């Protein structure tokens, strides 16, 4: 097995090297020169536009004019920003209460009712197994991604929470992948019935906790 892995790695490295060498041979000086001339011509064209002429020499003047003109707008903007922060903080508090209610007793605060959410023990197990396997797979990077799970005591709902430390917007793509993977697993496992299962998030990632919820089309 180890020998096979080593052989694969060796051949893989050779393959990559071969493609890299191919790159060097494929990029001709003529191609680079043509592109360079084209770029420089386009830049010249940009600078010839009347609105761009003398823009550098007038830069300082423009900044001053802009600051003077925009001062009242800045003041209004600051006021709006302050009000927005206050409203946002209140919204977060409200969401946090929802999270607590989901992991505990009832599910009244979501758009989906308890009747919409049908999932059995096997499916809970599937979600948990999936997330646990993710945890094992990312053990090496546990400083960056820590995955945990919990389940709802409510018999008709199942939620799996993924705690993503340092969760940030750029992780969005991964989350979409996770949702899709869990959906695929559920649908594969339940391929005998006509239901189509969906997995969705019901909480945003503002508190670094993503909650997955599964429901099907039967309801």
């Amino acid at each position, binding site marked *: 097995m180890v020998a096979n892995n080593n*052989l*694969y790695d060796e*051949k*893989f490295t050779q*393959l*990559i090297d*071969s*493609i*890299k060498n*191919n*790159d060097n*041979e*494929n*990029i001709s*000086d003529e*191609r*680079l020169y*043509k*592109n*360079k001339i*084209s*770029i*420089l011509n*386009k*830049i*010249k064209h*940009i*600078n010839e536009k009347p609105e761009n002429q003398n823009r*550098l*020499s007038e830069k300082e003047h423009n900044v001053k004019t802009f600051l003077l003109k925009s001062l009242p707008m800045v003041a209004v903007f600051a006021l709006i920003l302050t009000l927005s922060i206050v409203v946002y903080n209140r919204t977060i508090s409200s969401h946090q209460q929802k999270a607590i209610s989901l992991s505990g007793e009832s599910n009244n605060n979501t758009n989906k009712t308890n009747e919409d959410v049908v999932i059995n023990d096997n499916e809970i197990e599937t979600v948990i197994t999936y997330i646990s396997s993710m945890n094992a*797979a*990312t053990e*090496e*990077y546990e*400083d*960056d*991604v820590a995955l945990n799970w919990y389940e709802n005591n409510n018999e008709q709902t199942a939620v799996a929470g993924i705690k993503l430390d*340092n969760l*940030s917007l*750029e*992780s969005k*793509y*991964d989350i979409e*992948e996770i949702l899709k993977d869990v959906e695929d697993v559920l649908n594969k496992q339940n391929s005998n019935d006509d239901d189509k299962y969906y997995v969705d998030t019901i909480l945003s990632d503002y508190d670094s906790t993503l909650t997955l919820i599964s429901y099907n089309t039967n309801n």
Partner: protein
Amino acid sequence: MNSEIQTVIEDTFDEKEIVRQIINGNEDKFALIIDKYQRKITKLVSKFVYDENEADDIIQEVFIKIYTILPKFKFESSLGTYIYRVAVNHCIDYSTKNKKRKNKLKLFTDYEQQINSIPSNEKSPEQQWENEMIKARLLRVVDTLSEKQKAVFILKYFDGLQIKEIAEIINLKEGTVKTHLNRAYVKIRKELKEVL
């Protein structure tokens, strides 16, 4: 460009001074930036877009974008990293927008074009054909990766960048870069293990 001249340019290149001159209106100095980075950017873009004409359009757009946003560059990272970041983001945007409309047959033709230009070596025609098919298969698998997995894989394996550098270019945490890389590698391995 002659490689000796290229080396001289790289050794004597005072990027801060050149950037300052460009910002102050000496647009001809931008040619030095193009000379220094164009080959690297061409290699990078060619891994995202296999059609040479499309790739050239993107390369030109990338450099023009760099020129227009250069006044905002504050040397918080190296100029090279900054240029790579602009190029990678541009490629990711382009790939995302064009993935759906891209015809699979066309895609295959692009791969074929790329691998057919490989010079012959001492291997038999059958061996060469087999090797080229494996390369085409790898490139096809890379094209099926998510845009970030693809970007991370290309920067790591084809550009030989370190995880830290990739994280800086794509603006991700190092751990996230490793996760993307691991997933990309596992997918590729799954597809290629039969033929390698």
